[in-house]
């Protein structure tokens, strides 16, 4: 992680990040998602202007990536084998709130297999493991913030919360921007899935538009012919102030 791996033709930005809209994000305490009850801070968050500790963040170089890291159909499969399930591409861009592509953003994803089963020791769902599917992938965005994964569409699965709660099909995303204050984990849902609006985790978000913003659109124009359909999923990270007029004393 050295500075030289940062895209060379961009000047690093150092402006403060836009304030997070806490009414848009889910609140910490959401009793319909039961686990949140004992895990939600109850005191108000302490608001803090960004310092260097939040304005900076780790940068990851393409040298950490293996060739199949963004191809979940093959990155865990045995020789000559591949994961079972509907083959899809998940592609899009990482943007910031100003609409500017975020270059060099590390994206890490994880998901259940096509039957809705995770490869994890705490997982007890009766759907079988796929011996050729691990369930993790990662990539780094290009100069314009674009990225692409190939995977299988995950299945829905039941989970212990209410007596009959099911997760909609989803892919978990972890995203690094350029500052640690942009750090984000979220989930991608699939257009047209009737399970989305029933899910207590989805419904921790109060604003319907915020949920729609996590729902990927089927894009038949971006399919790989005779291989995989495509879903487009753009991710938005916090924007940062550009400071044409300096009004702060920067650190020594």
């Amino acid at each position, binding site marked *: *992680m*050295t*500075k030289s791996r940062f895209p060379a033709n961009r000047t*690093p930005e*150092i402006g403060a*990040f836009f304030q*997070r809209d806490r009414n848009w994000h*889910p609140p*910490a305490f*959401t009793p319909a*998602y039961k*686990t*949140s*009850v*004992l*895990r*939600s*801070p*109850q*005191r108000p*968050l*302490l608001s803090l*202007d*960004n*310092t*260097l*500790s939040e*304005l*900076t963040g*780790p*940068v990851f170089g393409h040298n950490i990536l*293996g060739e199949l890291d963004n191809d979940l159909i093959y990155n865990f499969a045995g020789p000559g084998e591949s994961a079972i399930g509907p083959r899809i591409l998940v592609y899009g861009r990482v*943007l910031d*709130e*100003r*609409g500017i592509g975020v270059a060099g953003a590390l994206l*890490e*994803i994880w998901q259940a297999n096509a039957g809705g089963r*995770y490869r*994890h020791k705490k997982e007890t769902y009766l759907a079988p493991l796929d011996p050729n599917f*691990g*369930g*993790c992938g*990662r990539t780094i965005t290009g100069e314009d913030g674009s990225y692409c994964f190939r995977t299988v569409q995950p299945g829905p699965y039941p989970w212990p919360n209410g007596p009959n709660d099911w997760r909609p099909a989803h892919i978990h995303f972890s995203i690094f921007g*350029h*500052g640690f*204050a942009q750090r*984000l*984990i*979220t989930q991608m849902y699939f257009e047209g899935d009737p399970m989305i609006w029933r899910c207590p*985790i989805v419904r921790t978000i109060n604003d319907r538009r*915020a949920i729609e913003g*996590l729902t990927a659109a089927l894009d038949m124009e971006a399919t790989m012919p005779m291989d995989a359909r495509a879903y487009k999923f753009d991710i938005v*990270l*916090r*924007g940062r102030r550009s400071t044409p007029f300096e009004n*702060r*004393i*920067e*650190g020594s």
Partner: protein
Amino acid sequence: MVQGLSRLKESASQTAGPYVHIGLTPNFVGISGVYERDLGAAMVADKTKGERIRVNIRVIDGAGSPLKDALVEIWQADAAGIYNSPSDLRGSADPNFTGWGRLPTDMTTGECMFETIKPGRVPFFDGRKMAPHLTVWIVARGINIGLHTRMYFGDEETANAEDPVLMRIEQRERVSTLVAPRDGDIYKFDIHLQGMNETVFFDI
């Protein structure tokens, strides 16, 4: 009507869930052969400058139990107080120190132990020096949006007393929730999500 500002909204957060390890520390849960090693597991190398320390972190829920399925990330300056980030324009950080670490809490004890170095002091935005600290970010099942806090060092009383962030905390008895006591080379940082000792979390 006026012109629109044409800003986008940040993607809404969703919980990392119980299987966060599959994506972020796959080798830890036995998914081997995809990534050579789990990212962020090693912060220091032989040549890293600075005082070697260990930081033991637990995340404790409202019933007093440590979370056994949490994931903790830390971000810190190098021994000279420089961040290994293009956005730190003050100089080059120690090339042998990433400044970033990531560990899952142990599935039995709920602890994780970072091996790192003690960071130098970093200026606040007005130029005053902050006390040495780690930025800490926590996600887990049941946490809807990642929690930001800081860990300060128990043996830095003088620096802590003049730290501009700690000075912002109105209820002075809560300052201690951010200060980890030292025992040998280990700092022990218990993060309380709720209760009498609820840790100060930041909206940054």
